[in-house]
């Protein structure tokens, strides 16, 4: 079916392995074990999954979870049309039917009662009951479920239930080591290594402030943005202020400190 093709990742995404996560993921996929990836925002979780889907040559269906999402947004729902009602598969159902990797991004954003629908798919049953339609879907042999979340802004309210957590094998992601991160910036955008090292240094200054007025440090993604701007000819300090400082804080003191870090780094 041509339908499957649209979910395929056709071009190799750039991914810099930090350790043995690629091999581990391949092992998990071979056993079709559900996977969870954790880590701060913009550290490469989604990129990793995309890369793995490409490497395994499997379709990838990504769902960005949010608070308003209900179980029927995942599973599917009846719609009305001229002749009556018509069933429409949700992304999870589609993935289970075609044998795709279903990636639920930021799963904690969804309400806990919503996430329960994935349970029968994530244990030995590998089925998805569509109770409203009265159908029981056997998952395709290639189907795999992946979830991601960011333990950083985990509040009391936003956490996964133990019964959900204990259905997955986990990967812990973090911002790469300074040298690796600099290399990523250079490879992704083509800037000089020296410049990317400086950007990484500013990133580290902000990450040190995490928990002291910053909820989250400057992510690799933002560093890539800054590098892209610089590459396209924007003056380095201005690019850093715009890409690294303004988005992450409204706090005047922090902004001032980070601006100073930029001044101090780019003499």
């Amino acid at each position, binding site marked *: 079916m041509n339908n499957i093709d649209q979910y395929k990742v056709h071009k190799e995404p750039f991914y810099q392995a930090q350790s043995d996560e690629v091999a581990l993921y391949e092992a998990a996929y071979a056993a079709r074990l559900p996977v969870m990836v954790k880590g701060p925002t913009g550290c490469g979780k989604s990129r990793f999954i995309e890369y793995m889907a490409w490497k395994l040559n499997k379709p990838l269906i990504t769902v960005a979870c949010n608070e*308003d999402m*209900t179980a*029927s947004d995942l599973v599917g*729902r*009846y719609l*009305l049309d001229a002749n*009556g*009602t018509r069933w429409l598969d949700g992304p999870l159902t589609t993935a289970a039917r075609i044998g795709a990797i279903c990636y639920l991004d930021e799963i904690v954003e969804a309400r806990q009662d919503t996430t329960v629908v994935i349970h029968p798919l994530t244990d030995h049953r590998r089925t998805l009951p569509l109770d*409203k339609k009265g159908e029981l879907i056997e998952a395709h042999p290639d189907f795999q479920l992946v979830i991601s979340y960011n333990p950083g802004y985990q509040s*009391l309210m936003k956490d996964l239930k133990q019964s959900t957590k204990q259905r997955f094998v986990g990967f812990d992601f973090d911002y790469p080591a300074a040298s690796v991160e600099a290399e990523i910036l250079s490879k992704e955008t083509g800037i000089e290594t020296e410049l990317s090292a400086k950007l990484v240094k500013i990133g580290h*200054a*902000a990450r*040190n*402030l995490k928990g*002291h*007025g910053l909820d989250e440090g400057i992510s690799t993604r933002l560093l890539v943005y800054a590098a892209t701007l610089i590459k396209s000819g924007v003056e380095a300090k201005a690019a850093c202020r715009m890409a690294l400082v303004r988005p992450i804080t409204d706090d005047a*003191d*922090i902004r*001032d*400190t*980070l601006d*100073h*870090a930029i*001044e*101090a*780094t*780019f*003499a």
Partner: protein
Amino acid sequence: MNTETVEIPEDLQPYWMQLNCGFARVGLVFPDCMREALATLSKDGVEAYIENARFLGKMGRGAEPILIFLEEWPAVAKVLGEEVLPAVMDFVRKMTRSPNSKAITPFLQSLPTAARRLQSPQQFNDYLSIVQDFMERTTGSVHGIHQTFPSPGLPEFFKQVPVLLSQLSLGGLKNWVEYGVRYYHDHPERQIEYFSLQSADARAVMQRERQGTLLVDAERKLGMYLRGLWQDEDHLVPYSEVFDELRKPMPYFDSLGIRLPDAYDDEHGISGVDRYRAALAHMAAHRRWTKPVVADNISPFQRMAVEFFEDTRVEYLAMKEYPGLRKLFKALHPTPIEDACDPDKQSAVRHRLAMVSRAMLDPTCSYRNPDVCEIVARFRKMMAEGDSSTTEMVDLAISFIARTRRQADLSPDVYFDNTEIGYRDDNRHMWVFIEEGDEEDVFDKPEAPPQEEIKGLPPRHYPEWDYNSQSYRPDWVSVYEGLHPSGNAADIERLLTKHAALAKRLKKMLDLLKPQDKVRIRYQEEGSELDLDVAIRSLIDYKSGAQPDPRINMSHRNDGRNIAVMLLLDLSESLNEKVQGSGQTILELSQEAVSLLGWAVDKLGDPFAIAGFHSNTRHDVRYLHIKGYSEPWGDEVKGRLAAMEAGYSTRMGAAMRHAGHYLEKQQADKKLMLILTDGEPADIDSKDGRLLIEDARQAVKELDREGIYAYCINLDPKADEYVADIFGKQYTIVDKVEQLPVKLPELFISLTK
């Protein structure tokens, strides 16, 4: 005294005659003063100079005023111009007519510094008007018309003018004077303490009015700087540069924290906060790269050199890390002029070392001194090879000192200009001394005497709002916090049984309030899910040609309660009054009411705290814990409630601020502070009744900013006069106090519904 005894040169005789002064001391200095005056003043100016000096001499206040005037005026006139003289003399005349003539001498004495600081005649006139206002307001009068008592603070003030003007702008000075005049108006001793800068208040207010960047204002930023860029953290402790005249304190750090000056002015185009950053960067670099060395075998000169070299090394490394620091350091590091001092006559060690330090930091610097060039080259080579180390710097420094030693180095005439590097610390962390006992084997430490256990918590200080000046009085109120003494819990149980019927009624209301969490809302046009039953019904309607109901979706709503409550009880003396028509005191009724409320809130499960307060002047506000948020509603709490006692006065604002800081830390969507009181805020040390009311109003505003909803339950039938001023619309007056046990829980329930 005879005028003939002093010899006045011929050409000055006419002036001397005109001055007509009999003091011998004046005669001794007159020729010199006169020559200076003739050189600087215009012809009219000289005329006025003599005329006014004559007046000061005839005033009957001794020789001091005329002497000071003769000596100082020419210099003052040079800065400000001669036209300010009439204003000055006017003021002096005013002082002679008032009981303040003692202050004339200090005033004249303060003129030159004031002139130097203020520069323009306009500013100087403003200064005079501040002083005049000050004098008029603090000079005591007995029957309102005649001023009879001298201003106690005025002479002291003039003595402090140099310090004050060096730290404060004119606006700041005005506020500082204003503060002193207002608060110490009727208290001569305190006034003297304030204006002689001895009281803590005087220093605190001066601190607040200082120009430049204050450490307290920049503290958070600097903390972040240290953490973000240097992965370091420590307390930043301010010290004041104002009060140590002889020895200027320097930044330093030890186990107790990093010491920095309390304020930095902008300098060399570097803003105050960047100067702090430079100092912090220097110290953070020391903390990262300096390893202490043993000092005992190194001479003082060598030590000084080692410090210079090590300072430079860590700065070099810091600049390698953050190249932008170079700009700061370069701007703040003095540039000694190469030939400024003669190494054969003066001790030039500091000068040489400062040159080395400058040259090491700043590659563009071109000194010709061969020793300097050679050592800088060696330094650069070492740094190019790696981080080097403190011990290598010791070797380098010692060899430098040995090579450049001069006879005059030991001379007491030390060349200091341009050698002091203000942002560097005093390097006390760099040296360890082998002390007596360090090398012995026995380490019997004398047993420390058992320390006395601390009772209660240390006081917390809160500001108080002064509506007169629309500003806070810093750290004005001391709040002492403690556990309320315990009584018999059974008493409270008995009260609860007494109100069993009421409790039953309350329980019904409470059940309705209980959180039900997820509630399904049906019949929605837009919703999260299709409501199949309704949808199919609509579809059937549609197919059969009737108007279908479009509301076929449903959604969910969270119906949780998330309220944190603080109940603040006024425990002032007036609670002991009996309520008319019942045998109980207000205190007993409040006790019943609070018990019922406590029981009700406990049933609801909202986080809940109870505290009482009373005050005995601003120095002693008691804040008594009855129930904390994490404490269960059990016997211990009931025991404390049973022991409730009333006494002293009601300083409401401070208690609210203190209660607010606990409530603020609660994690809840809504925060409610209930204040149960029976009268207006008042205290025995506050004469102005409005003051504490306005302060309480300000406290309500502060709480509001923190997201805390303050609500007052007032038992004073006359409360209408003030309660709305404090709480706006957030209050209830309970006229019939005996109904309080019924009203309070009901009120709470309706507030939180």
